[in-house]
């Protein structure tokens, strides 16, 4: 099908989000590829994969070797290979669930190899009865499964640079991933220990070589926090906290403490290094915001994007991800003319609380330069800010919790550059 002018939803060739659906299924073009047939048999006309037996079974499958280049990009501190981050290649993936092996990583001193039989979680501090939980014990508790994104507070921080960095969607925004997590509601363990009414926070601590520790407000622990034991159906990966991590849906990635070994109920925050010297944001008046615990509403177009150039004028699908630490995505708008006009994208459901949501919009690209933007709004009315407005909130050089509108410049020849809008 070809879209007609009746389908236009905004400037630059953006079509109504139901255009593709109205046109029905794509016409088949594959039928003619292997038309030749031998007179006495069909073998000669068949592809080799139909004429020789295939590979045997495997105990744990791996991606197609044809796509073996889909990998996390690693940025480690020189001489400290366990310190730094690796990013999810967002532009090479579709849907909303990140494969566990491509979930972004942020480690502060490497990945510990924890013996699950020896590991325990201790709950103490302002409780009636301090308790120790083994993994085997937790595996007998009632569990809950849910999708949730985890996003590093430093994600997209490169966008504060004066000039736009020429890199991929994953390179810029790949410190966000989304999984189905399964685990034990934290409130169950807190009730079992009996929380003293004076406690309003707890300290969560990991068993890694950084002893990662963060203070968490108790309301969050009682709301939707869990001790996650499974990720996408399998035991949580070492990079994500095996044998257990704290999951705080929508909160700064750093607070979702991996390799969780201890929860201490406290009167107030403990003011750990990672909630004072880091993950705080200086404002122009010299004061710093601390405990900016929740990630803002945000979106990014993953296709087309840097590295995925246009292949001539014609009909394309704009595809991207949106999320909010406050809840569900309500709408995503897309502009192809740098923000002069906007069209509402289709949300590819289910639209879930504090999880990645895929948005899509058909686009008839006619070969002209085009500045592509996306702008997400969540169910509470929070809207992604413009980059200039985001920057104005803070002192120079501050880069945490960057959630401003991102842009791709599509050039006349079909090349795509990262741009600011």
């Amino acid at each position, binding site marked *: 099908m070809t879209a007609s002018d009746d389908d236009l939803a905004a400037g630059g060739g953006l079509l109504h989000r139901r255009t593709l659906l109205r046109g029905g299924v794509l016409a088949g073009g594959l039928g003619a590829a292997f038309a030749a047939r031998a007179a006495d048999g069909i073998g000669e006309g068949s592809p080799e994969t139909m004429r020789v037996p295939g590979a045997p079974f495997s105990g744990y499958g791996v991606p197609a070797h044809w796509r073996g280049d889909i990998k996390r990009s690693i940025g480690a501190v020189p001489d400290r290979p366990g310190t730094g981050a690796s990013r999810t290649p967002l532009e090479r993936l579709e849907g909303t669930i990140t494969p566990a092996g491509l979930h972004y990583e942020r480690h502060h001193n490497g990945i510990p190899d924890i013996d699950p039989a020896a590991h325990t979680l201790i709950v*103490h501090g302002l409780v009636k*009865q301090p308790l120790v*939980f083994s993994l085997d014990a937790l595996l007998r508790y009632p569990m809950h499964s849910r999708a949730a994104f985890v996003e590093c507070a430093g994600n997209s921080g490169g966008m504060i640079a004066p000039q736009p960095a020429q890199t991929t969607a994953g390179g810029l925004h790949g410190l966000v991933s989304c999984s189905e997590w399964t685990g034990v509601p934290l409130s169950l363990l807190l009730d079992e220990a009996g929380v003293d009414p004076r406690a309003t926070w707890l300290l969560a*601590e990991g068993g890694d070589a950084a002893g990662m520790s963060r203070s968490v407000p*108790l309301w969050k622990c009682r709301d939707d926090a869990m001790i996650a034991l499974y990720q996408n159906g399998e035991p949580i990966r070492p990079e994500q906290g095996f044998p257990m991590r704290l999951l705080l849906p929508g909160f700064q990635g750093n607070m979702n403490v991996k390799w969780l070994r201890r929860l201490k109920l406290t009167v107030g925050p*403990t003011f*750990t*290094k990672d909630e004072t010297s880091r993950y705080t944001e200086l404002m122009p008046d010299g004061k*710093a915001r601390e405990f900016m615990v929740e990630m803002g509403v945000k979106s990014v177009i993953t296709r087309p994007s840097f590295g995925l150039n246009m292949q001539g004028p014609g009909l394309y699908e704009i595809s991207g991800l949106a999320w909010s630490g406050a809840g569900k995505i309500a709408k995503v708008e897309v502009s192809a003319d740098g923000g002069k006009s906007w069209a509402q994208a289709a949300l590819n459901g289910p639209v879930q609380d504090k999880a990645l949501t895929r948005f899509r919009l058909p686009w008839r690209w006619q070969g002209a330069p085009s500045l592509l933007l996306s702008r997400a709004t969540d169910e509470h009315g929070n809207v992604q800010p413009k980059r200039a407005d985001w920057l104005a909130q803070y002192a120079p050089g501050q880069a945490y919790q960057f959630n401003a509108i991102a842009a791709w410049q599509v050039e006349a020849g079909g090349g795509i550059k990262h741009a600011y809008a």
Partner: protein
Amino acid sequence: MPTLKLAALSLILMAGVAVAATPQSPGLGRPATPTEVQAVDISVPPDGSTLPPGSGSVAQGAAVFEANCQMCHGPAGVGGPNDRLTGGVGTLTSPKPIKTVNSFWPYATTVYDYVRRAMPLVAPQSLSNNDVYAVVAYLLSVDGVAPKDAVLDAKTLPLVKMPNRDGFVSWEARYRPKTAAR
């Protein structure tokens, strides 16, 4: 017919399975002994209540720093390949704010907690409690936050007032659901 089946199924569920919004706990937590708790309770809040016995002086700390920290953080905590630790006091409102331990961190207890649990990066938790008191005293002394003859211990360390002690504004309440109890 389908209605009947559904009704029968509901009855079975009601009879045998607790399908509840708040699941029941099997109660498998084992009481922790005071020794177990003490062994893991390494976090140090601003009141210093969990600081260990021992002490350390600025002079001792200078030696500890040179042997364990300088390779990554540079002499006196400046100019190394990793984080700058000292200087920058008073720059937070300037066009180029410099965040260091002395210019930015609100509590000396945080320095003690972090150095003791996570430093040096190549051998975390290898310093003695006294060494950590000493190295904190040294770092603070570089910018005069602690005097050159300071000796820090569980009593004196929480009393140190960091220059940026009042420089933070908590944003946490903005995210609190209106229905959530504190």
